[in-house]
């Protein structure tokens, strides 16, 4: 009887240990992902600040690590050259596991025409990548309370293995009167 109890006790201890190891690994991975997410969000905010107050301008300034995927750069160029570019209020940036930008997607705009121009020789599509590991959703809206205040909302998600988990979210408010915001 005591042998069974000691075996069960050992098995329980082993399970607890393995769960602790898994938890430590998960916390470490999450911490690293959040650090990357914060950097990307910070870079996007600076890109927005550097531009004329539109999302297309911010995307053009951003170009984060896009040199690995020239198709993405071409996609951003195509996006910026659209006549109604200023009307874009939401953009999604997709990254691979190493946080290299692999795709860009404008949900409120038809990019099918510009996707041709945006596809590089590497095959990266400017209209998004279903195999992305991370995604940064950026939206721009006018404040309903204070005229002239524009609110940039950034949400970074983990999209690996079919997941859709928010790992970081932030908001950037900027006072930019209408005449300055116009391109």
């Amino acid at each position, binding site marked *: 009887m005591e042998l069974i109890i000691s075996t069960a006790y050992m098995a329980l201890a082993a399970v607890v240990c393995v769960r602790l190891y898994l938890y*430590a690994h998960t916390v470490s991975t999450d911490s690293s992902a959040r650090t990357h997410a914060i950097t990307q969000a910070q870079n996007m905010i600076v890109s927005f600040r550097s*531009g004329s107050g539109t999302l297309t301008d911010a995307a053009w300034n951003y170009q984060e690590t896009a040199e690995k995927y020239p198709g993405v750069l071409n996609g951003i160029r195509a996006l910026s050259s659209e006549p109604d570019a200023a009307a874009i209020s939401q953009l999604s940036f997709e990254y691979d596991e190493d946080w290299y930008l692999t795709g860009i997607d404008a949900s409120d705009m038809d990019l099918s025409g510009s996707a041709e121009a945006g596809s590089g020789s590497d095959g990266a599509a400017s209209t998004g990548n279903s195999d992305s590991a991370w995604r940064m959703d950026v939206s721009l809206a006018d404040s309903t309370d204070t005229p002239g205040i524009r609110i940039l909302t950034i949400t970074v998600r983990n999209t690996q293995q079919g997941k859709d988990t928010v790992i970081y979210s932030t908001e950037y408010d900027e006072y930019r009167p209408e005449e300055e915001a116009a391109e």
Partner: protein
Amino acid sequence: MIFVLILFASLVIVGVLLIAMGTGVYRNVLDSMDRNDRSRTASTYITQKARQNRDAGAIGAGTLDGFPAITFRQNIGGTGYTTWLYCDGTHLKELLARSDNTSLSAAAGTDILEMSRMDVSEDTHSLIITMTAADGTRRKLRLAEDP
């Protein structure tokens, strides 16, 4: 008796495996934390430095002793000084010197943390800083030049 011995042996093997697995996980977690901390410390240090010097035209890009550098200009008692942040191939370094001093050596700076390379380029109203850690991982940071 043999059953007890086999049971004891299996418990010992499980224990050793758990310890080995724990050591591996602990090492991985430490490595990951170390990489994360280095990268975050470097970007936070540079960002905070930029925020301290957020005057119009104070932040720029330059070259010190052949190494790309971020420059922060300031006026102290009527004299112009420049803080140089650069990487000499082994460390991120900082050097405060008079702006008119043109004979600066990269070795004169103070070590901040380990880094193997830092590239600085100017874009529309912002600086793009590419930092390469000692283990080869790269991170890009964008800094606003305007206040």
